[in-house]
């Protein structure tokens, strides 16, 4: 070997993807950050996550504490007033972030994992059962999901948050699976995938190391899409009384507000505030999605880094 006589072995180049996963995440956030609309989304989402994490420190009262005067308007002691059973609305709003945000993120994450598993294997394997999977996915896509959720939740007798997460995942994975599948099919026929087979790579390595990294933006987009759908669905189910009415979440706040006829008593803040939080949370994720395009395009990534 001629190179053995040559001492030039400089800093070994870092191999892409084998690096620290934290670095990968940090770079992804950096890419998203460079798009102003997405930056707005990231700031909002971070604020919500902080609110949920530090709810006990931020909230002025215990959200279950019903010892205050009933149905008060906003005052210095209770900025957003009190509920019909004498709980502080602001404290409920802050504590509600915990349940609502975590349900959205967990359900979104699970739905995305199912979508990745189904979408990638369905897209990569060319076989008859691909058609069968396709039929099932399409069925889940066209069946209106909210009625399906309502029916499942009704049978399960308001089993609480786990049921809601389950229902949201069952009805929410199909969209992502379809998008990821068609992208997988496109990538599968690319020469670099054939080349990887010639390099002796195993199917799982081809799927996860060659194909999947090229779909990062789609995966992230489908996660935020699923999380948005999840928080809207959660709120819808709880608003209909299909959640556990004793948990404090934005959906159950709306349920109680509606049941105590706050529109008639004029305490519309109790309806407005939780709905606004849900909308804002959904908006934050919609806006992050403006910035995910650059994630699997090294050229875009570079261009944004130079800015």
């Amino acid at each position, binding site marked *: 070997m001629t190179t053995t006589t040559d001492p030039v072995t400089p800093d070994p180049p870092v191999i892409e993807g084998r690096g620290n996963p934290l670095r990968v995440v940090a770079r992804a956030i950096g890419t998203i950050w460079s798009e102003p609309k997405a930056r707005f989304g990231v700031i909002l989402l971070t604020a919500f996550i902080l609110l949920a994490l530090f709810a006990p420190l931020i909230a002025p009262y215990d959200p279950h504490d019903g010892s205050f005067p009933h149905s008060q308007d906003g005052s210095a002691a209770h900025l957003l007033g009190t509920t019909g059973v004498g709980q502080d609305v602001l404290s409920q709003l802050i504590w509600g972030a915990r349940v609502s945000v975590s349900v959205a993120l967990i359900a979104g994450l699970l739905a995305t994992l199912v979508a990745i598993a189904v979408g990638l294997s369905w897209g990569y394997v060319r076989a008859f059962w691909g058609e069968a999977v396709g039929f099932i996915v399409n069925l889940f896509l*066209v*069946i209106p*999901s909210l009625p399906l959720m309502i029916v499942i939740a009704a049978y*399960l*007798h308001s089993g609480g948050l786990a049921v809601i997460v389950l229902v949201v995942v069952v009805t929410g994975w199909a969209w992502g699976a379809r998008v990821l599948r068609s992208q997988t099919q496109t990538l599968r026929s690319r020469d670099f995938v054939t080349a990887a087979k010639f390099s002796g790579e195993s199917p799982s390595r081809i799927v996860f190391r060659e194909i999947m990294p090229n779909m990062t933006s789609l995966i992230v987009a489908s996660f935020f899409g699923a999380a948005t759908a999840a928080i809207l669905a959660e*709120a819808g189910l709880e608003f209909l009384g299909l959640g556990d009415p004793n948990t404090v979440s934005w959906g159950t706040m*709306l349920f109680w507000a509606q049941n105590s006829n706050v529109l008639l008593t004029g305490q519309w803040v109790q*309806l407005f505030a939780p*709905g606004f939080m849900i909308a804002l949370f959904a908006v934050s994720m919609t806006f992050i999605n403006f910035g995910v395009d650059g994630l699997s395009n090294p050229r875009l990534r570079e261009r944004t880094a130079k800015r």
Partner: protein
Amino acid sequence: MRYFWGRVGLFVLTLWAAVTLNFILPRLMPGSPADAAIAKLSQNGPVSPAMRASIEAQLGVPSGSVWSQYLSYLGQVVHFDFGVSYSYFPQPVSSLIGAALPWTLVLVGSVTVIAFVVGTLLGVVAAWRRGTVLDTVPTVGGQFLSAFPYFWIALLLLFFLGYVAGWFPTSGAYSQTATPNWSLSFFGDALDHAILPGLTILITSFGGWIIGMRNTMVNTLGEDYVTFAEANGLRPRSVAMRYAARNALLPQFTSFGMVLGGVVGGSLLVETVFAYPGVGLLLFHAVTNQDYPLMQALFLIITVSVLIANFLVDILYGVLDPRTRQ
């Protein structure tokens, strides 16, 4: 023709799958929905053997062969016989649905068509005037609005336009003093009641159409056939509509099916807020009263309606895209 029959086949298959899913669902659930239903029903008086058999076929009982239950369930579906509701005892489920369905079909159907047309047109304008105010306002605004919960928009409209401003009636599909007939005055009354729920569905659904159309048309504007049409000196309106928009419309139709399910789901919530006597409100009542036969039948009807709408859109797509005819 090949495309048409392919779609018909797929439609029939999907229909069968949806009907079967409806059969399997209660049988997968813990406990026995059928026993619960029969218990509920017996509170209203003695349960006849025929009613019992009907409920067992629909919701499943531990005894009896699943196969024979499935066959008699299919028989019921074909005859629109969904048993008796016990929350509205002794009304049959089919007549309850028959009364509620037209309200939903007209409301959701017409608003969906309006939202599709308006949203798509705004999307065309946004793509054609990319980067201008005509682009950013509808796109960003549409993103904003489609992130809002349906029922929350409904509540806001109800409060501000209904209670505070008093411009529109706050509940029902027509005034309590009116009786449904084909007169112009009743029609006006019904329209008055439909505005707030309709507006809610419109606001929350048309953003998706704007963004979908805008994004696909931005892509088609970059296609060679658009450049070539410009090179041939076609009028800008012709390039925009017949070349760019016409081709961007096709994916818009393909995504219609997926979006429709969401719109229908959302309008169910809207109906409950406005106490609009459609299938959504009925479903809400069925769920709160654990009226399983009614709930089960409603789910089937809603699903089948969406499937039919999808099928019609598929056929329309075939007409619009010459490539499906080859």
